[in-house]
């Protein structure tokens, strides 16, 4: 029969395939990690390397503020070995979603142990009803030192779930920590070249409280922190007056906000619109911020481009 050689060939191919797969499956299947948003997923990827497979629920360039879970998200969470969340109220939905999807394990809060800032997003202090302790500002990753803590927390969680990989995770963590420390130093030394009167960052959405505090920039925001409310005429007028008073040369539009509004504010306040700053999402692989480190570098370049080289605008005043 001429079937036999055919079957043998298939069998041989299958056997070859199995032997090719064997070393990996003996090694252990990759750890399934689910992160709530793209920046966190990138940190997990850096620390976990090949031993983990990371899924981000809120993908690159998606707005975390209006997130609505999809059934596919629940399925992803159900299969997860480790779930990583930012905490500080940024992604509180993930706990409920993970529980309802049947995920029994711990949810790792990456921001554990950082020094949280209060939410500065409300303009309340302008008319007297300031709160003593508002909700916390969740955008802690805008300070690189905080991300070093994030990475440590994530490494710990990974090696709890996968003790065999501990040496691997520790080695990768050490390497990533060096890179982060270098990034932190780079941001500091670059921004230190700015004269004191130009250290003002005006953005459409105040995600940069940690950045400003860590690197010595005054952050002025147009709209509230979570898009909880539409901007009012009073809020816009206040910002325009502030721009006129502070003599700010540039305002920054983020990848997620109404550009017409920021344009209007810039025109009336006498400032130009700077390049896009990334706040809570990485760009896609082809963008200028595919990883956390590259995102911070892109933001730094945009800030320096806006605030660093403005002699023309200043002499014009």
């Amino acid at each position, binding site marked *: 029969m001429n079937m036999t050689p055919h079957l043998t060939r298939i069998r041989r191919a299958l056997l070859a395939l199995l032997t090719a797969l064997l070393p990996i499956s003996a090694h252990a299947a990759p750890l399934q990690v689910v992160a709530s948003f793209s920046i966190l997923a990138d940190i997990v990827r850096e620390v976990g390397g090949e031993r983990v497979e990371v899924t981000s629920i809120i993908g690159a360039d998606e707005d975390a503020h209006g997130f609505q879970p999809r059934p596919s998200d629940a399925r992803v969470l159900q299969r997860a070995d480790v779930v990583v969340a930012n905490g500080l109220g940024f992604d509180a939905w993930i706990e409920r979603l993970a529980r309802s999807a049947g995920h029994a394990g711990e949810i790792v809060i990456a921001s554990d142990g950082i020094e949280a800032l209060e939410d500065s997003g409300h303009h309340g202090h302008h008319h007297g009803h300031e709160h003593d302790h508002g909700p916390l500002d969740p955008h802690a990753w805008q300070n690189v030192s905080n991300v070093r803590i994030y990475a440590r927390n994530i490494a710990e969680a990974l090696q709890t779930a996968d003790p065999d990989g501990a040496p691997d995770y520790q080695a990768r963590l050490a390497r990533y920590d060096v890179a982060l420390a270098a990034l932190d130093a780079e941001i500091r030394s670059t921004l230190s070249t700015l004269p004191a009167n130009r250290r003002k960052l005006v953005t459409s959405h105040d995600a940069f409280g940690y950045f400003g505090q860590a690197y010595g920039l005054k952050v002025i925001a147009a709209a509230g922190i979570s898009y909880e409310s*539409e901007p009012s005429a009073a809020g816009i007028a206040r910002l325009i007056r502030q721009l006129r008073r502070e003599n700010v040369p540039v305002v920054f539009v983020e990848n997620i906000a109404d550009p017409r509004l920021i344009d209007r504010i810039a025109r009336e306040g006498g400032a130009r619109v700077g390049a896009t700053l990334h706040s809570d999402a990485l760009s896609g692989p082809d963008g200028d911020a595919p990883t956390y480190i590259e995102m911070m570098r892109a933001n730094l370049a945009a800030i320096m481009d806006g605030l660093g080289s403005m002699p023309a605008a200043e002499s014009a005043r």
Partner: protein
Amino acid sequence: MFEFFVAPFLEFEFMRRALAGSLALALGATPIGLFLLLRRMSLMGDAMSHAILPGAALGYLAFGLSLGAMTIGGIVAGIIVAMAAGLVARASILKEDASLAAFYLMSLAAGVLIVSLRGRNLDLLHVLFGSVLALDDASLLLIASITTLTLFALALLYRPLVLECFDPGFLRGVSRLSPVAHYGFLILVVLNLVSGFHTLGTLMAVGIMILPAAAARLWATRLPTMIASSVIIALASGAAGLLTSFHADVPAGPAIVLAAGIAYVLSLILAPGGLIGPRLYRRPHLEY
């Protein structure tokens, strides 16, 4: 007084632009709203605004935050729904409200489906909430052009439209203009809803159409007076809403619509056609 009412507009261009947008909207959308009201189609305006949303969303998803794409998308979706509903109402046993409800629900569902297919970037909702405080030159020109077109079209269609309001059967009997008046009017409704959604958002656009019209209906009995007073009420609501947003730190769109709502409630109480108004204005020769 000057500080409170005029200074905000003198100091800030965005306030002047918002006022200009409200003026254009009051002149165009409010008379349309009055005819909707007189034809007992007030709720149809609301349904139509939902039918426009998916078209505008599609335009946004295909071309980004482009005024042209969103406007054309909205107009096309709105006109398709209005025409289809009108045709069904005239050619089948279904009444206009039933066929309109059917088509706008389908359009809305299709739009929501398409939006969710394209990811979860939610700027769209912020955009669709309107941006009366961020009107750029292109948006203002668009709104003003729609208003100009509306006023000319209303001038041309005035007689048949009035007849269509009060005795559609008679109009159909004496003239072949009935469908022209009907479909022309529906197109005007769609155009003005689109200009309303650029300023107040799809949810609020109907407010500035219907509320001033309803208030004016309570004060006036003659149509020209009714149109004039509805425009004045709409304009005053626009200015009052903007000033409230400026002084009380609240979002502008809802403030404008609520100001129109307050005008309506006051009219409901005080106007001759309202609740206690008839007693206030009773003339001696009407007494018996």
